[in-house]
């Protein structure tokens, strides 16, 4: 009864519609999301759909063509260069990611010690990752030059080889060279993020295990690795994804050559679509990348999550 008195007085000030909306978090949320949402819908979601549509047409540069169902994909299915590019992409991604992970983890473990000038070392190690890929690729181009390569020069001086190595002219050498350049650029990112993960592992776990007489390998296998798994999952998802869709490095170093030995799906898609003017076919190659990407994301999401067996328990 008493509580009703102020309620009766309430209609004295009318709450405006604007004030009401201002207190509605759903309305405000929509309002705040508007700029980002519009940009992303217009320039990300729509082109994603448009790309799939284009892959079903015979479009050329300058206009959207006729709808031809799956002709592009059937054409690609019989195209040996396309399958070579799929093989190259998988090889490039798997080899480069595995080595980046191994070396990155090693570097992270080294940096996790007390070192003089630690902050400075950490800062300069990230440089390869900061500098534009294209520009560092130019340095690698000269390092891999067939006549003036510094690696060939050093190996000759050491008496290990008598002939200069043709880094980018031979299919196998070219593959190895672009993978090496990709690894060089990727190590810093993997190392610095894994280092952050290492620093969250309590020191006391290692001390307790040492007192219990564990070997260094056991401490790594049963403490460090399980505690690090969630971060490894995120880092490797990014690493695999960006290696799989790499374009810049190949474009500068080999443009897909020699004999298409280093063509990745992304570079082949560009070559067919822009210089080759076959937009539809290029879009089909790009669309063909999507299933691989989804597989990679799902694999890291489900495969690398923190599971009980990693802590010595059983999975349910």
């Amino acid at each position: 009864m008493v509580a009703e008195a102020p309620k009766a007085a309430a209609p004295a000030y009318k709450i405006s519609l604007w004030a009401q909306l201002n207190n509605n978090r759903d309305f405000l949320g929509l309002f705040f999301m508007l700029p980002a949402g519009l940009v992303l819908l217009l320039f990300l979601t729509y082109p994603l759909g448009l790309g799939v549509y284009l892959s079903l047409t015979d479009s050329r540069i300058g206009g959207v063509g006729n709808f031809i169902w799956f002709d592009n994909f059937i054409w690609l299915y019989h195209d040996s260069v396309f399958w070579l590019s799929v093989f190259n992409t998988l090889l490039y991604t798997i080899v480069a990611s595995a080595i980046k992970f191994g070396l990155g983890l090693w570097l992270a473990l080294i940096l996790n010690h007390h070192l003089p000038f630690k902050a400075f070392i950490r800062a300069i190690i990230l440089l390869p990752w900061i500098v534009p890929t294209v520009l560092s690729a130019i340095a690698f181009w000269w390092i891999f030059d067939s006549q003036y390569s510094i690696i060939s020069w050093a190996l000759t001086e050491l008496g290990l080889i008598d002939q200069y190595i043709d880094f980018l002219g031979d299919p196998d050498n070219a593959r190895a060279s672009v993978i090496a350049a990709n690894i060089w650029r990727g190590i810093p990112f993997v190392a610095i993020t894994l280092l952050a993960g290492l620093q969250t592992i309590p020191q006391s776990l290692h001390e307790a295990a040492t007192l219990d007489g564990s070997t260094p390998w056991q401490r790594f296998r049963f403490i460090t690795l399980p505690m690090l798994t969630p971060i490894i999952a995120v880092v490797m998802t990014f690493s695999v994804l960006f290696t799989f869709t790499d374009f810049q490095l190949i474009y500068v170093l080999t443009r897909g050559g020699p004999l298409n030995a280093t063509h990745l799906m992304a570079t082949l898609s560009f070559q067919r679509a822009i210089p080759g003017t076959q937009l539809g076919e290029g879009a089909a190659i790009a669309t063909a990348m999507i299933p691989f990407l989804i597989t990679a994301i799902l694999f890291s999401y489900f495969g690398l999550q923190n599971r009980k067996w990693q802590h010595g328990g059983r999975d349910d």
Partner: protein
Amino acid sequence: MTDATASKKDVADEGGMGYLVSLPRKVVTIYIPLALFVFILLFPFYWMTVVSVKPDNELIEQGANPFWVDNPTLQHIRHLLFETSYPSWLWNTMLVATVSTFLSLFCSVLAAYAIERLRYKGSRYVGMGIFLAYLVPPSILFIPLSVMVQAYGVRDTPLALILTYPTFLIPFSTWLLMGYFRSIPYELEECALIDGASRFQILTKITIPLAIPGLISAGIFAFTLSWNEFIYALTFIDASENKTVPVAIVTELVRGDIYAWGSLMAGALLGSLPVAILYSFFVDHYVASLTGAVKE
């Protein structure tokens, strides 16, 4: 590999048990591998610098020591600055990177605040969507985007890049800022709400001032990402004077079979400097947010 990793591991973590390890052992297991890593990671930069100040005749001379330069010259840099359109490429890159960074930051702050603090219906799913949007690579989008850019009539203008770069900048900076906003105490906002502040006032007068470090790192990331962008700039821009530095160096300085290696390296070095300088000023922010974002 794993055995090697393990043997590195045993040398005490973070100094806790570091005193158990003798100095000679530390040299072999830590300092030598670290020195090798640093040498390999930094060598290409040293190499770029040496080549960019080397006169042409020394560059192709066989037998000379390639690691050193006898008569350093600035001819390549002078050629680059005064005989090519390098200054205008730099200006284009700077313009595109700055405008798209600010545009993306504006959108991202509002979006991150809404997802993290307004918690409207479905905000969790929108947050997931933003993360997934970051995983959509430009190599899939450039073909449809080139059709759109053509249709809107902005092809071959800086606007084409300014409009498309936010597609990868917004998801990333929103994701970064969401983590940052989460670390700001909720109570501050509740106090302001009770005092009658509107949500917009709270955002501009409380949350943003507290999130300045987060904004700085998101801004550096966004600037670096747009400075490094290649495939959109390569596809959407045709005229030489409209190109950005990474694209122009690859397409304009390489003509025929004779590569002007000195100028190429000088161009690559100068093009890397702005991001390297920016990075060196804010390196702590950068590393902290890089690792913070991944720790999520």
